[in-house]
């Protein structure tokens, strides 16, 4: 399976795959209004899933604040366009830069802690942001929220938004793949597996982890921007911790370590939950899916497929026989 970084500047396979899939699928999807609307919403979720992939799958930060970063992006868009009359393209930069800056700062503070503590810190961060949004009435409209967010320039039909959303996904995958095929992408993989090894390579671990988290937050911010302009209304419930958790689940189920994993997870998972008869069953379904994945395929659906592909190609190859001996446990304080 493609391992980021090993490829000699070859084509960007993940970008190619997603671009072809989008070009093939979109014309079909756009034939039905219901599908078109779903395509936009799924696009927002897929972007959030990608942001989890960058943070958790690559930088190793189990993040539960992506919904909050999206909310910041969404509110930045809403406030700048409705209150300050910014044109709805210019606000995208702010919608990405603001969460990125916040994520970088927070990560610099907390990534020195254990992975679990870092995860809890992101959860707390999300809650704090939610509370701030609820309480900053003058700016955010408090509990009531903000309405009348203008559409993005000429794009004012669901079809237009569907194209915009999936175009943004292709661009994001391209940038993500660029990063993973560079020294920084390899370095992220190293530090996720073994921080001492990373430091011996000369990697400034907190700085690079934080940079990865900032990129992830910027993608989440872009998702929030898209959401705000499409729905044209934003309240504190729109993009909350619930969204953060489902984005995390979808990324993990699809395969957070694989560039396209979160997209696969989003499509499959959301597709399935939409088939669920009752909304009450969804929570049960989420939990069951997560447990199955954690027990049967820790690397997600794409990881499972990659493992199968490897076994088909080399039927005799035992899967990583020495991995156990290589546990990076030489005691380093």
């Amino acid at each position: 399976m493609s391992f980021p970084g090993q490829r000699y500047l070859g084509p960007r396979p993940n970008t190619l795959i997603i671009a072809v899939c989008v070009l093939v699928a979109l014309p079909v999807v756009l034939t039905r209004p219901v599908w078109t609307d779903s395509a936009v919403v799924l696009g927002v979720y897929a972007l959030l899933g990608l942001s989890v992939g960058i943070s958790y799958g690559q930088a190793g930060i189990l993040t539960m604040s992506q919904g909050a970063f999206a909310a910041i992006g969404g509110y930045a868009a809403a406030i700048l366009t409705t209150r300050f009359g910014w044109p709805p393209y210019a606000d995208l930069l702010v919608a990405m830069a603001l969460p990125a800056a916040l994520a970088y700062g927070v990560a610099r503070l907390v990534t020195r802690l254990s992975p679990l503590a870092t995860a809890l810190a992101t959860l707390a961060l999300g809650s704090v942001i939610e509370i701030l949004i609820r309480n900053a009435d003058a700016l955010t409209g408090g509990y009531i929220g903000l309405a009348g967010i203008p559409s993005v320039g000429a794009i004012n039909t669901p079809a237009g938004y569907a194209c915009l959303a999936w175009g943004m996904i292709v661009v994001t995958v391209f940038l993500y793949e660029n990063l993973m095929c560079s020294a920084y992408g390899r370095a992220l993989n190293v530090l996720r597996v073994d921080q001492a090894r990373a430091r011996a390579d000369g990697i400034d671990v907190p700085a690079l982890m934080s940079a990865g988290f900032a990129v992830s937050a910027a993608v989440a911010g872009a998702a929030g921007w898209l959401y705000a302009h499409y729905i044209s209304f934003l309240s504190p419930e729109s993009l909350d911790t619930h969204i953060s958790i489902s984005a995390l689940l979808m990324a993990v189920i699809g395969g957070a370590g694989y560039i396209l994993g979160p997209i696969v997870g989003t499509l499959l998972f959301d597709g399935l939950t939409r088939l669920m008869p009752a909304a009450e069953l969804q929570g049960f379904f989420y939990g069951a899916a997560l447990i199955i994945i954690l027990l049967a395929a820790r690397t997600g659906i794409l990881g499972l497929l990659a493992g199968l592909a490897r076994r088909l190609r080399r039927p005799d190859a035992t899967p990583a026989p020495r991995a156990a001996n290589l546990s990076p446990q030489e005691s380093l304080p």
Partner: protein
Amino acid sequence: MSRGLTATGIEVAFGGVHALRGVDVAVEPGKVAGLIGRNGSGKTTLFNCITGFVRPTAGRTTVDGVDVTSLPPDRVVKHGIARTFQTPRVDPRATVLSAVLCGFYSRVGASFVGSLLGVPGAWREEQRLHRRAEPILERLGLAELRGREVGQLSMGLIRLVEVARCLASGARFVLLDEPAAGLTAAEQERLAEQVRAVAASGVGVLIVEHNIGLVRSLCDTATALETGRVLCAGTPEAVVRDERVMRSYLGAIGDLAATEAAA
């Protein structure tokens, strides 16, 4: 201050355990310095100390006169010191090529944002890194294995990959912690040749090695440690013939015989 890597008066304590008590070593550019000593004598701790993983309670480390004592590991690498680990620390799923490419990290000129955007400069640099990795892989006999996952190689080959990664950093001083352990005779010879070639190019090498024959044929100087102290230092010939060193190693063999007899 003189050229070279020097550690003077290094003391390290872990709680009540004095792992190092005033150790001096020096590595000159272009020379191979050997570090020997029985298990637990403090060789790895000395490496950890020089490379910033462990803070000494006393003593200092300088590189070409620049003080690098207590710098964090990633900053030490920027001063031109790279190391391998006694127990290889590798991602078993990474390929040999990407493991070696990781070694270039401290020399990468492209920015994070440039790499993300895929600016031409970053693409060109990535190409350059791949080109530079080839001769390193070739010299260590790893070229055919470049696409293999590290986790599927023998321990000896994994050690060679670690050495290659270390060399890729372009360090002026490399610290190799028992790189020959688990290597076949042929692999050992290839490693020794490579270490000589690296030294000939002006790099100073500090190598932990238990194989006395290899120490003799490879090293220009040697230092023997015992329980955190320098037992003896000088030419490899003099050190391995030193009575205290022989007794120390024989003692180790005696211990071994005793434990085997007990078992």
